[in-house]
């Protein structure tokens, strides 16, 4: 019984190795792509299961494009992109426009006095602040609150949101498919005639978002951990921004950022669902063709220099023990990228994964653990990170040591064929499971296009994983998981010690 079952597994595993991207031909055949004259790229995937469609705009800009002093701007801009245009979100733009200018002037005057620091005149400060608030209130009279979102909601829209990461900013929602043109109308106006109204209030909202992060132990750990792992590259900065930067960002900063990065050649749109690609192309040319082209922003200059020594941060908090370990790795376009994916799968996918089995089930030093590549981004060299919740009564040191032992196994012992076949079969099954949701397809296709230059890499990745050998895994593990390349972040609890 036992042996039969074993060999049966083996047979299943071997069969899996044959399944490459070939079988995903059909879905790839349903993709249409085109680029407008101004450089904006479109990817359209037909899926006629239900009369709905998902829309996503991928802006190839994230917090990695920020410099000192303007951290948080990419994310704050994302919030501003919901504030409307000269036609949306206003009761009377002719009157609102000068009112908004007055807000800017009042803010600048107040800030100028504030910058004098100790020498600032307190009476004058109070007056200037009051004047600013007054100007804000005046401009507020013309605001049609959140009209951009309201239009989408009234159209029966779903999944309305936007996200900002280190690599990207995404804007998305879904509509009943007959309202296709509404997306074109709204989204093209959004990036053609944006108006940054309520800027300083939205900045307050983002500061609240930052406080939410600060109130979470893991949020605080992540920020300190990234700051330790990077000393030069902007991946070390928090996406939400530093509080002092948020306090000083201006509408002019946001406008400059917009002009520089929100040019058509920096945007990719993905449309997935019950749509006719010909019609999508027509509408794209008509609506988005209006956006003037601009020079592609210069690539980032800074590269993180090779790490020279282990780095550590420990946070003592009113929270339970938590461990993060990270190692620098190359970006998504490196030839070894699939090897890192395979290592992540070996370590973390499923209950038979090495980390779950080793740390949770057998050693019982952790209650949750994961190890994965690609944090905080993939466009530039990121980190392979391990994250664990230390089990009650166990120490962070035990968890760290256990992770090291699993790493050592990767370096010293070649991975068995059976285990590697599991990785390959899971990669195929995992890809299949991603293909039945319009929005997740829109996200995956646009990401692959932006990060690797071709959406087809979503499927080619399978062939690359199928080609990974046990020797590749040993080689890459040995190169990556070294002492000098390691950053550790720990949460230690504030708790009463027993007397002895």
């Amino acid at each position, binding site marked *: 019984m036992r042996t039969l*079952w074993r060999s049966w*597994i083996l047979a*299943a595993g071997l069969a899996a190795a044959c399944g490459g991207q070939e079988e995903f031909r059909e879905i790839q055949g349903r993709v249409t792509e085109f680029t407008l004259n101004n450089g904006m790229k479109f990817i359209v995937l037909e899926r*006629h*299961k*239900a*009369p*709905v469609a998902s829309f996503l705009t991928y802006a190839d800009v994230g917090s990695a494009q920020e410099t000192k002093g303007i951290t948080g701007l990419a994310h704050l801009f994302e919030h501003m992109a919901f504030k409307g245009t000269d036609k949306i979100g206003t009761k009377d733009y002719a009157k609102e426009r000068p009112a908004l200018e007055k807000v800017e002037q009042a803010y600048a005057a107040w800030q100028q006095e504030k910058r004098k620091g100790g020498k600032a005149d307190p009476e004058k400060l109070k007056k200037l602040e009051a004047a600013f608030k007054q100007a804000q209130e005046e401009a507020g009279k013309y605001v049609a*609150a959140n009209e951009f979102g309201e*239009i989408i909601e*009234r*159209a029966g829209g779903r999944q309305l949101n936007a996200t900002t990461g280190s690599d990207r900013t995404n804007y998305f929602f*879904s509509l*009943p*498919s*007959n309202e296709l043109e*509404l997306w074109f109308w*709204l989204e093209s106006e959004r990036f053609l005639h944006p108006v940054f109204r309520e800027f300083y209030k*939205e*900045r307050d*909202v*983002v500061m*609240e*978002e930052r406080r939410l992060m*600060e109130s979470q*132990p893991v949020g605080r750990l992540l920020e300190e951990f990234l700051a330790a792992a990077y000393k030069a590259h902007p991946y070390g900065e928090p996406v939400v921004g530093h509080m002092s930067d948020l306090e000083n960002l201006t509408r002019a900063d946001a406008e400059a950022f917009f002009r520089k990065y929100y040019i058509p050649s920096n945007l990719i749109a993905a449309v997935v669902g019950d749509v*006719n690609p010909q*019609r999508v192309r*027509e509408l794209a040319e*008509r*609506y988005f063709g*209006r956006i003037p082209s601009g020079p592609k922003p210069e690539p980032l200059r800074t590269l993180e220099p090779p790490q020279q020594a282990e780095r550590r941060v*420990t*946070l003592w908090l*009113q*929270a*339970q*023990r938590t461990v993060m370990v990270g190692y620098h790795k190359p970006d998504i376009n490196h030839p070894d990228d699939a090897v890192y994916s395979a290592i992540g799968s070996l370590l973390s996918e*499923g*209950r*038979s994964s090495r980390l779950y089995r080793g740390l949770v089930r057998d050693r*019982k030093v952790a209650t949750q653990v994961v190890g994965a590549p690609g944090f905080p981004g993939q466009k530039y060299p990121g980190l392979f990170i391990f994250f664990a919740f230390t089990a*009650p*009564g166990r120490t962070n*040191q035990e968890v760290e040591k*256990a992770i090291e*032992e699993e790493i050592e196994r990767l370096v010293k012992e070649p991975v068995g064929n059976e285990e590697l076949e*599991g990785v390959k079969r899971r990669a*195929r*099954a995992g890809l299949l*499971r991603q293909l*039945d*949701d319009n929005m997740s397809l829109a996200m995956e296709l646009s990401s692959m296009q932006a990060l690797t230059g071709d959406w087809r890499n979503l499927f080619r990745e399978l062939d690359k994983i199928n080609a990974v050998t046990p020797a590749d895994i040993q080689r890459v593990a040995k190169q990556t998981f070294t002492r000098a390349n390691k950053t550790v972040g720990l949460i230690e609890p*504030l*708790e*009463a*010690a*027993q*007397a*002895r």
Partner: protein
Amino acid sequence: MRRRTLLGFAVLGVLLAAPAASQIPKTYKELKYPPLNRIEVPEPVRFQLSNGLVVYLVEDHELPLIRASALIRTGSRWEPAAKAGLASIVGTVMRTGGSERFPGDQLDEELDRLGASVETSIGEDSGRAQVSVLKQDIDRGLEILADILRHPAFPQDKIELAKIQQRDRIARRNDNPNAIAFREFRRIIYGPDSPYARQPEYDTINSITRQDLAAFHREFFQPENVILAAWGDFSAAEMRAKIEKVFGSWPPGGRPKPPAPAVDPAARNRAGLYQIVKDDIPNAWVVMGFLAGQRNDPDFYALEVMNSILGGGFSSRLFNKVRSEQGLAYTVGSTWNAGWDYPGLFLALGSTKTESTVQILEAIRREIAGLAQGGAGEEELARAKDGILKGFAFEFDSTGKIVQRLVSYEYYGYPRDYLQRYRDNIEKVTREDVARVARQYLKTDQLAILVLGKEKGFEPPLSALGKVTRLDITIPPPKQEALAAATPEAAARGKELLARVREALGGTARLSAVREYTVASTLNLSTPQGEFALKMESTVNLAGRMLNKMTTPMGEMVQGYDGQTVWMRTPQGVREAPASQRAEAEGSLFRETLRLLAGLDSPGLTVQALGPAELEGRKVEAVAVRDEARNLQVKLYVDPATYLPAGKTYTAALMGAPGEILEIYSDWKEAGGVKWPYKTVLNRDGKKLGENTVSEIKVNPGLEESAYRKPQ
């Protein structure tokens, strides 16, 4: 076959002929849409096996995948209160432990090799078992699913593993403020002992046995309690045969389905102001609400629309006013969370910086009151209704969604066409309906309001708003082992033994001269990864102060307790530990041998001889000292030959985990006229934790009182 809209092409033809720019309407309102393509709803096949198990099947050939999901009539609301956590552990161990035929560890390997998953879980009001496989693996998937549902093995090691996870969840439950706020608000409304709000504690988890798991399984896992849905790349006829094969032989259990436990009527009346103090966060959470209703209440539809206007979505009143207009919050909104078969909660909430705590409270309450008094406008009503009605096509964009919805309706006893009825009823909601339900339900004087955050740092203080009820969220430590009531003889014998211990250690005169002592030592912790050495210097003042210095690989740490506050100095600076740590510090001081012997006559303390016992093969006499009111207890083992303490056991939290600690003493030496054990072996829950070796003891080192206080 799908119909392509001819109209779409016709429109396209016209558009192509015209110059592009002029085609763009000035306002989106001028856009003309073609009719929506027909929503093609697959009709699920429903049938019942002769044993009562209900099945829904839908073919979907888009991808070579098959999924199955069973909803099972069980849940934590039916577990015994004293065993809170049992249902969740059953749900976990069914899968991690597997069955006799499919042991859990082997399942882990097999499923991961297949790229498949079989998972089970039990939540508050239902259990779930799910299979997701590539289509060629469906036979294996179903076979596994049926066997672990019918014959779970519940092996002891996987029960222990699940208990570690549960204890970890308990230990971490106060780490995140948002989780605290939601949980505690539920407890305020339903009551902390309600089946809808109670939570696992160390005691309830510790008391759960394998028999409890087996009994719980027997009670609920019968085919009559299971509704199974499968969808994906199969033929319904073949799938039916496969399901008959693995589930058909499951004999009916014959037990009636359990009805939903009632909600305490007092839950309707929890108005008040509640506060939880959390001092280490820069923001406050404000949650307010009351007991709501069920999805089958006649008013449900109007309430759903009302809530959407108040705080649902991107352009609700709360979002517009509190977030966009006032910039007070990132998170703000409300939900009318109607239950399927018991009353759910209405809640409105927001999070803001400490300074604006009261401001956001008032702002949210103002919007609730405004809707109650003024009702909603025509535009708002249209937004809320259109949002639901025009997006109706999204209810049919995934086969899993369609079939699982039907399973839920049947599980909770709703009609199969409930979705259509819901739609029709939403359509009928008028402004008058919204005004009426808002007036009837949104009563600001009936709100329970919970504020979580710093105690101070905002104006006015909470007390200015009304009477404040402070909630204590300290995690209850496990109860001490229950001892038989002390007989007068046992009490006398106990005191006599401890008097002899006092003599053996140096005599009353010398002991009472000790006011304070410092013990320098090395603590070697044993772990599976080897030993970790910590240098320690512990000072105890018998008046009830404590100061520990530790040198760890992370740097030097100092922990102090001045009788009021537990604090720590780490390389990161000085921090106050949560108030809950005070009990741990008091427990630690309580157990100090010299302090224990000096305070035997304190009121509230009971001493009791427990008779002969065995400690690591040695014959000893056991004495218990107990302070019932403070839930403190220690057992001292006395060597009958020397009357020196041979060891001590007690319950304490060490590194975030309460456990049974055993200290074993040896290597007795004199310092300051008193005998001390220079070596202590520490065990937790029967396993060696480490060894403490003393290098030096100073008696009456004369620390300043201020040394115990938190440095400024």
